[in-house]
């Protein structure tokens, strides 16, 4: 059995009096691409925001199994969470529109101090996404949606993540571009050994690229399994995934 990198246990998250997550539990194994599926409002984005520390859970905890020690992310600030290598490419891309592509990448490396490593990683990101290299001096807001998504992922990679959280990378993109981006994500996962937690509405695509999947409905995990099994199971598909 593979070893867990991230463990989410009984997490309850509230927006004021409204409970968004009713005790969510799942795990992400090292080296895998794991996907969280579910309809709008199921709590996928809330889960990622809780892991990143933007939201505080009222019960349960999020743990990261670092090299030798166990870190409790749910007690850490968003800054600390980035520093231990859990980095998010958020929903809607959220690039810094008025900053250049290059400055956006610099921001991704904000927590790092190693100048030469940053420079090398920038070159690597531009290898994965050549278009970012071509648009280096351009304001990020002038990029197309697909290019902004690439920048958002590239920016997250600049932080040297061990766990990359991706929220709806396909949102508003043409299928071909989405395909291209997912290919690159798979390459990054394979070649760099970066573990990925992927939230995605395009269920069939997410199950094609991931190893394992969890299905969320109204704030709880109702189903889990290997992506292969989830994809094959007719009744699962119809009742939970709706395609």
């Amino acid at each position, binding site marked *: 059995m593979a070893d867990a990198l991230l463990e989410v246990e009984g997490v309850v998250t509230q927006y004021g009096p409204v409970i968004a997550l009713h005790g969510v539990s799942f795990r992400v194994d090292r080296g895998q691409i794991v996907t969280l599926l579910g309809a709008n409002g199921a709590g996928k984005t809330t889960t990622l925001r809780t892991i990143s520390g933007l939201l505080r859970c009222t019960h349960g905890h999020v743990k990261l199994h670092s090299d030798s020690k166990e870190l409790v992310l749910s007690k850490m600030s968003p*800054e600390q969470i980035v520093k231990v290598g859990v980095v998010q490419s958020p929903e809607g891309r*959220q690039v810094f529109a008025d900053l250049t592509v290059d400055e956006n990448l610099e921001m991704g490396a*904000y927590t790092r101090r190693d100048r030469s490593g940053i420079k090398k990683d920038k070159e690597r990101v531009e290898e994965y996404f050549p278009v970012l290299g071509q648009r280096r001096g351009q304001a990020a807001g002038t990029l197309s949606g697909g290019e902004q998504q690439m920048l958002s992922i590239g920016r997250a990679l600049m932080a040297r993540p061990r766990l990359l959280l991706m929220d709806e990378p396909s949102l508003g993109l043409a299928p071909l571009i989405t395909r291209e981006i997912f290919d690159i994500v798979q390459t990054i996962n394979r070649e760099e050994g970066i573990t990925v937690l992927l939230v995605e509405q395009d269920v069939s695509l997410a199950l094609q690229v991931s190893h394992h999947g969890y299905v969320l409905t109204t704030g709880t995990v109702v189903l889990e399994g290997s992506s292969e099994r989830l994809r094959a199971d007719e009744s699962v598909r119809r009742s939970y995934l709706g395609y």
Partner: protein
Amino acid sequence: MHFDVQQIINGIAVGSIYGAVALALVLIFRSTGIINFAQGEMATFCTYIGWTFIVADRMPYWIGFTVALAFAFLLGVGIERVVIRPVERAPELAVVIVTLGLFTIFNSLSLGVWQSLPKPFPTPFKGGAIHVGNLFISRPHLGVLISSLVVMALIFAFFRFTKVGLAMRASTLNPTAARLMGVNVDRMLMLGWGLAAAVGGAAGIFTANLILLDPNMMGGVLIYAFAAAVLGGLTSPVGAVVGGLLVGVLESLAGTSSFIGSDLKTPVAFVVIVLVLLIRPAGLFGRTRVSRV
């Protein structure tokens, strides 16, 4: 209207002060959405601190100047942390009232500690006017113009070339994304208030170089700085500086023109504000915010 080059020169010098105060206002406005009405009074207070060091303690001018700006910076940081942070999520009107409260507090502090009698503030720019043809500029005016341009250039360089400056710009553009990159956005806001207070403090000292130091010295300056910030577009630092210079020139021309004159020149600032809001609400350099609904 008689177009007087000499008046334009004088206006640019005074306008550089308006630009600096407008820059301070814009720095805070674009990161927090707050207009800091106390900016001028904080500046006056820091100018008195500088006066205490330079005149009472006989410190060399530029050392006293630097110490006063450092004090202003810490004051700005402290105010953000202690007074503004608790009302950060409160309705905007509440925050406005808080800055008005700060206005009163600092005005009273200056008056209470240093009394209302106007004090001369030493200037390192001494000597007669510099003549070019039949035009001239007084050395204090020239010194103030150059120093405030240097202060503003330093601020721009900080934002453009340093990592912290970049993080501050990013935090302004998208606080959530900045936090996801590991930026402590609260700290950036504190830093922003500190920088704004330091720029304001510099403008206060420059103002005192040109007129006498008294507790209400920055009142008039702040009004013109508002006009400058609105003219430049409240979100644009470059706009604030350009707006400041334009408003300074306009004031100077209005003050000497026969049908406005010095008695009526203060309303000119308000006319500028009203006209800009009517014709081009985003100002010269500001960006209209387009949001998808």
